[in-house]
């Protein structure tokens, strides 16, 4: 079990580096050659792997600064569909059974 950080750039990278946690990452060379569907498939697999491991999921960007239509919003919607909800203060997601 580890720690995964989600959010907008650059906060999620900075927090992940600070905590030595994981974040979704692909180099520009690979990312730019993927279709939108392939990009989301890779992103979703990263989230599924984190769920399988039981990782702690931290939010580096507060919902006040969530950009509508962003990858970050899509990640949150996916995790909500898998039963995750924000804890008090909404800086991490917890699985609600």
């Amino acid at each position, binding site marked *: 079990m580890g720690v995964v950080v989600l959010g907008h*750039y*650059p906060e999620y990278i900075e927090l992940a580096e600070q905590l030595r946690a994981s974040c979704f990452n692909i180099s520009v060379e690979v990312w730019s050659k993927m279709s939108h569907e392939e*990009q989301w498939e890779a992103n979703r697999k990263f989230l599924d792997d984190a769920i399988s491991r039981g990782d702690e999921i931290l939010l580096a960007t507060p*919902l006040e600064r969530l950009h*509508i239509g962003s990858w970050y919003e899509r990640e*949150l919607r996916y995790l909500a569909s898998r039963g995750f909800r924000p804890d008090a203060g*909404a800086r991490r997601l917890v699985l609600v059974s």
Partner: protein
Amino acid sequence: MQTTESDIISRFGLFLDRNGFTVLRTAVDNEHFGNEVVICSAPCFRVKFVKDRGQIFTEISRGAREPWYPLEDVLKVALGSQEFEARYAYYMADPTSALELNLEAVTRAVQEKQDEIAALGRDRAQEVAQDIFGRPIVYG
């Protein structure tokens, strides 16, 4: 993080020059999706363009060490909800035009209505939490 050619500067360079913005910081991160951050200063506020996994977002701040707010929140306060909602799709598709057409109103809002902008962000966060998770955020 390495600095190489900026897609944001390529796209918005003319807008920045035309409106007297000074580029304070440019960072291009090719190890992470080609993400970018470009921070620029105008006489009365700062603007930050962020390229996050290929999507570009715009945020506004009153100055150094001040909080950043999404452009849409600043515009909503600057223009009023009704006018902003009427032009929402256009402004979100072309944020530099939204800024350029409303520079004076944005400047006034950033300088004089920061509390209102921050409150709008908190309200929006609750709406987002309700929409995505089916319940509002509970604070401490």
